[in-house]
C-alpha cells in the first residue's frame, strides 16, 4: 500500500522565535529551518511500515510519497525525508504561508492524484500551532481520522491506532483509507546516514505550483498584528527548602 506524508519546513525546534519590530510577523531571516518535528515522526513511522520494523509486517507499505507546500527551499525538507527512506517527493511552491484550510484543500487534490491508502502526518506544525490540517483533510475527503497517534498497527485493510487523549489513551480502528496524525510518543526519528543522503539526491521531486491544483486558497483570516508575549521577570533565589516554605506560606501559596 501507498502512504502520503505531508511535511513542512519550519523554524528549527531549538531556535527562539523573535517578533519583527513592525509587528507583521516572526523574523525568519537567517534563521535555521528544519522539518517540523511531528512530521519527522510521521516520516519515520512510514519508513518503519515499509521496512517491517518493530511490530509492523514487512512490506505493509510499498511506496512513501512526501509532499510539501512552501518556498523553493522546502526541497531541502523533502530531501531530508527522502534520505530517511521516502521514495519520492512533490513540492507545491508557495511563497506565502497558506492557512490550514487551503493546505487541506491542496492535499485533498494531491490525494485525488496519488490515491494513497493512508495519509500519515504530524499533529501540528510548531510555527502556526494550529493542529488542524490532518482533521480538515480527513473531513474534506470524508475519511475517518485518528489523531495524536501513540501506536499504529496496519492489518486487514484497517489502521488500529492508539491515541493520546486527556487522562489516558483511546484505541480506534479505522478502515483504510484514513488520515492519521502522530504525536510524540509514537517513535524516535532516525538520523539519515551519509549513504542515504547521497542516494536521496537522485530521488525524484516533482515541482508543482499552487495554481496547478485549481483550488481556492484565499485566506480567511487577516493577521492584524503579531506581538511578543508579556515577559515575566525573574524573582529571587532562596537559600534552602526551609526559606522556600516560609516564603510560600507568606505569599499564601501553601
Amino acid at each position, binding site marked *: 500500500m501507498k502512504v502520503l506524508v505531508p511535511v513542512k519546513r519550519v*523554524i528549527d525546534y531549538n531556535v527562539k*522565535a523573535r*517578533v519583527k519590530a513592525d509587528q507583521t510577523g516572526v523574523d525568519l531571516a537567517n534563521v535555521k529551518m528544519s522539518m517540523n518535528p511531528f512530521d519527522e515522526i510521521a516520516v519515520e513511522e512510514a519508513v518503519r511500515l515499509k521496512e517491517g520494523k518493530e511490530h509492523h509486517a514487512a512490506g505493509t507499505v510499498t511506496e512513501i510519497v512526501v509532499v510539501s507546500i512552501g518556498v523553493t527551499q522546502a526541497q531541502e525538507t523533502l530531501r531530508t525525508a527522502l534520505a530517511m527512506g521516502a521514495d519520492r517527493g512533490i513540492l507545491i511552491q508557495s511563497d506565502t504561508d497558506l492557512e*490550514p*484550510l487551503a493546505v487541506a484543500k491542496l492535499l485533498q487534490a494531491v490525494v485525488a492524484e496519488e490515491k494513497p491508502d493512508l495519509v500519515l502526518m504530524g*499533529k501540528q506544525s*510548531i510555527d502556526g*500551532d494550529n*493542529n*488542524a490540517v490532518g*482533521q*480538515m483533510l*480527513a*473531513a*474534506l475527503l470524508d475519511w*475517518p*481520522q*485518528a489523531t*495524536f497517534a501513540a501506536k499504529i498497527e496496519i492489518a486487514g485493510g484497517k489502521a*488500529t491506532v492508539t491515541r*493520546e*487523549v*486527556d*487522562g*489516558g*489513551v*483511546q*484505541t*480506534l*480502528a*479505522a478502515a483504510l483509507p*484514513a488520515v492519521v496524525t502522530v*504525536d*510524540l510518543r509514537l517513535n*524516535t526519528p532516525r538520523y539519515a546516514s551519509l549513504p542515504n543522503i547521497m542516494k536521496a539526491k537522485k530521488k525524484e521531486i516533482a515541482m508543482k505550483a499552487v495554481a496547478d491544483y485549481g483550488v481556492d486558497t484565499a*485566506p*480567511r*483570516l487577516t*493577521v*492584524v*498584528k*503579531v*506581538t*511578543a*508575549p508579556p515577559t515575566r521577570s*525573574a*524573582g*529571587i*533565589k*532562596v537559600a*534552602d*527548602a*526551609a526559606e*522556600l*516554605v516560609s*516564603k*510560600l506560606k507568606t*505569599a499564601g*501559596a*501553601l
Partner: protein
Amino acid sequence: MAVLVIADHDGSTVRDSTHKTVTAALALSPDVDVLVVGQAARAAADRAAKIAGVRKVLLAESGELGHTLAEAVTETVVGLAPGYDALLSPASMDGKNFMPRIAAKLDVAPISEIVEVVSADTFVRPIYAGNALETVKSSDGKKVITVRPTSFVAAAEGGSAPVESVAGADAHKAAFVAEEMVKSDRPELGAAKIVVSGGRALGSAEEFHAVIEPLADRLGAAVGASRAAVDAGYAPNDYQVGQTGKVVAPALYIAVGISGAIQHLAGMKDSKIIVAINKDADAPIFQVADYGIVGDYKVVVPELMAALG
C-alpha cells in the same frame, strides 16, 4: 448572534474548562447555548444548565458520541450549526480533535487556542510555542474556535437553563476499540491549584516516581513533566506541560530538574507563583521563577518534604 459551546465533560459533571469557554462565548454574544455530546450524559447536561449565563443546554446522545468520536461529533454539530454564528470548544484533546473537522465541513478557517476575545471577529492566539501572540480577524460568516481555558476565568454557577434533547449522530467511520484511563486520586493537571513537574534531570522513570510523586501527594498537587522527560520515557504523555502538551496556570507551579525550554515555559508561564529547583544556576527556568533554589533535587526535595512537615 448566537454561540454554541461544546462542553468538556465526563458524563456526570462538566469540567471547569467548559465554564471558562462559556466566559469566552459570553464575550461574543449574550445568547450562549451549551451542547453536551455523549451517552447517558443527562447528569452532565443538568450540571451545564447551572452555569450562569447559559441560555439553554442541548443534549445529543449516541454510542459513538459516548466515546467522543470526531466523525460523530462533527455530524451532530454540523447539523446544529445553521442556528449559530460561532462554535466554541475548550482546547482539550477532544476539542482539538473534532473542531478542525467541523470547520472543514463548514468551509471555515478554524481559530485555534484563543487566549483573548478582542471583538466578535478578532481574537488573540499564541503561535511559535507561545513566543509570539497573533491577533487575527476572521472574514468567515461562522467562527469555529477552540479556547485555551487557562486564559479565561470560569463562568459562575447559579444558572437554571432548560435542557433539550437533540439528535445525536453515529457516523460509522472509525470504530471505538478500547480506552485506558490513568487512575489517579490526584487532581487533574489542567485544573489543579498546585502542580509539581519533573524534568530530564530525574534520569529515570523510577526516580520520577520516587521523587516527584511523593512531593505532589504531600501538597495535594497534580503531577506534570517536561517534554524532555516524556520523550525519555520517564513520564506518560498526558503529564506533558508545554505548548504541545497541556497548558496550565495553577496558583503554585514547582519545577524540579527542568531547565526551562521555550516550549515548556509556554505551558506554565501563566502560573501565579513559580518555584524552580535546578542545580544549574544559569538554567532559563530561573528567569521566570519567583523563587529559585540552586541545588541538586536529590538534596533539595527531601529537605522540602521535611520542611513541609
